[in-house]
């Protein structure tokens, strides 16, 4: 992410971001990072918590891990579907350490705007996020 993008983002209206991951350390690191960039940030640790937030608030961007229950889950796909149903204009980034080409393809088919393979540096995620919000 460039300093220019950061500066531009800081002068823009405050965007609201939802971060969803079952790894508490990752969630807290992302919350701190994006809040520091000037975003309003909500966080959720499980599918239903994210769905309850989506039912009550409008988000400009949702960043969600594909798996929220350990082995084998693809809850992130459900979150993409929920976002598309409730906040049609919101952007969605899915993160996964286990993403196969099939899952990645399905993510885009369901409406994800980006699919990023973990591990990813925070600045790389932020770069994608800012670009998506700038082009929203």
């Amino acid at each position: 992410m460039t300093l220019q993008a950061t500066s531009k983002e800081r002068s823009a209206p405050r965007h609201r971001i939802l971060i969803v991951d079952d790894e508490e350390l990752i969630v807290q690191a992302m919350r701190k990072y994006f809040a520091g960039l000037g975003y309003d940030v909500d966080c959720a640790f499980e599918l239903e918590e994210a769905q309850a937030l989506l039912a009550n608030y409008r988000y400009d961007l949702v960043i969600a891990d594909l798996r929220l229950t350990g082995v084998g889950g693809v809850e992130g796909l459900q979150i993409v579907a929920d976002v598309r149903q409730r906040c049609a204009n919101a952007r969605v980034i899915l993160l996964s350490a286990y993403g196969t080409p099939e899952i990645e393809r399905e993510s885009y088919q369901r409406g994800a705007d980006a699919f990023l393979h973990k591990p990813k540096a925070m600045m790389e995620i932020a770069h994608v996020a800012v670009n998506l919000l700038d082009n929203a």
Partner: protein
Amino acid sequence: MKERSALDALLAPGGIRPLYQPLYALTNGDPHLFAFECLSRGPHGTNFERAPVLFEYVRLKRQEALVDRLCIATALEQLPAMASSTKVCVNVHASTLARDAGFIDFLVGAMQKADLHPARVIVDVIQHAPAHDGDGFALAIRRLRHLGIAIALDDIGLGASNFKMLLDVVPDYMKLDRCIVDGCHDDSKRCAVIESLVELASRLHSTVVAEGIETDDDLVIVQSLGVRIVQGFLLAAPMEGRKLVEWPALSPSSAA
């Protein structure tokens, strides 16, 4: 991964925090205390401090009955003794009444522990989670009435609320959601909806409660439209039990 789910945290001791918000009657001039509504919030610093998020989460987890019981038990346990002289509203999902066959017995037990006579209790039926089991729901409503407990229908005008529920329950109180009330002072369409619901309530021998009163202008308008019970931050925000004891509006003359 987090070691325990949010649901585990909510169900743990102290996971649900009770708050109490006064309702006021507008009859005979100035507002006077009519009842306290028992409200619930999740732990500080979590998303569940926000009631709509808390209860949407509980419904998605399909744990309405368990959490309804916990909220009522906690609220009545911590209800200050002074509040026992007025009416008390407790919230229950329609789905809990329909599916939790032991709920009414549980409620009676909780009321007895709190020394709360049925005539002072209002069960506020939350319509966000539909009853589905119509027979179970109807039986629960009949049992509540038989006990002498009043029934309110919550969320009128929002989400899953509908006329069939009005016919099924024929509530003593119809609680208009804030989405209808808020800003009514300069919105003729909202006024038309409120006026029509006041008329409907009158014909059903029900009483309208306007939630979400936050301005003097809205208060004046709902009163002029025939609303006789109001609730909202203008009059009193939800408060903890210890503050309720000091609440100046709570006087013997205001008891229901």
